[in-house]
């Protein structure tokens, strides 16, 4: 998928015109809240953390509390599962679902 990174390598799912597009499979299947809690440093790039430690790409790591991001993703997957169950039930009832 295509994500967008800012000049601090933080990930975004939409581009306000100032961001850099990156193609990666690192976030396939992940919800927006999860993706936007990560940093992605592409191969060939270097990021220096505020304490001076340097990381060389390719590296992806959360900048928000990962426990919170994981909880968002869990809720997203549970919701998708419910929607899939609902679609299946409607299909059995012969109710068309607008797509």
């Amino acid at each position, binding site marked *: 998928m295509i994500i967008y990174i800012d000049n601090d390598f933080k990930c975004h799912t939409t581009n306000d015109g100032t961001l850099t597009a990156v193609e990666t499979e690192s976030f396939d299947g992940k919800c927006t809240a999860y993706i936007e809690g990560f940093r992605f440093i592409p191969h060939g790039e270097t990021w220096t953390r505020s*304490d001076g*430690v340097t*990381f060389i790409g390719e590296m992806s790591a959360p900048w928000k509390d990962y426990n919170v991001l994981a909880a968002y993703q869990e809720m997203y997957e549970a919701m998708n599962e419910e929607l899939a169950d609902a679609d299946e039930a409607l299909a059995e009832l012969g109710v068309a679902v607008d797509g």
Partner: protein
Amino acid sequence: MLNFKIVGGTEQPINPSENTIWVNTDADISSWVFSATEPDNPTAGLVWFETAAYSENKFNAIKKNGIYVYPIGCKQYDGGAWVYKQAQTYSNGAWKDWFEYVYKAGETNVLTAIGWKATSGTVYTHVPTVSYSADGVSISGSGNQNASSGVAYFKNKYDLTNKSVLEADVTFTGSSDNALNINGLYVWSAISSGYFSADNAAVARLNEFGTQTLSVDVSSLSGEYYIGFGVRYMNGGPTIKCSEVRLK
């Protein structure tokens, strides 16, 4: 009489004496303690030097006889919470970083070097080959078709709370598909049967062959995680040979 000195500040001390311990901090150090476990009821400014059974930075704490201290990490109680602080020791004419070994080739005193477990993880799954030698552990992709992939990871989880950086010294050889490169150093909350490349908390990927250090920012991870390597079989390779894994 103590055989070491502790200095706080945002710049390394000039003309330090042997066993000077520098804590990179802009907060006043009110007191300090060496302990294997987190101190109870800390006060503002307290520096906790975490100790273990083994450290590259061991030192004799007193001028006579021998009471050796094995520091592996440094935190300061600042703003109502424990905050990771960089610590270095001036030893034999140079500043040395502090860190905790997760794995060190040939070092039986590294208590956390408890072994690896190989498993598989994507559409074309195949358990990697893990072999040990005096200078490291080699993880090789295996399979009967290209794009087979698998993982090798330390059997027990590691507590990454208040840890800052995960590093691994590796040599990457063989062949790889750069368009689908998922070889690298991984942090997982769980080892699932799913696509391990997408199912991780943090990763540093191998994009070039040769000897290198992989570094992962783990400062936003708290709790226990698996640490290991993912490898993807392609044209008979590749191999990740690891000599050290460190946590700071």
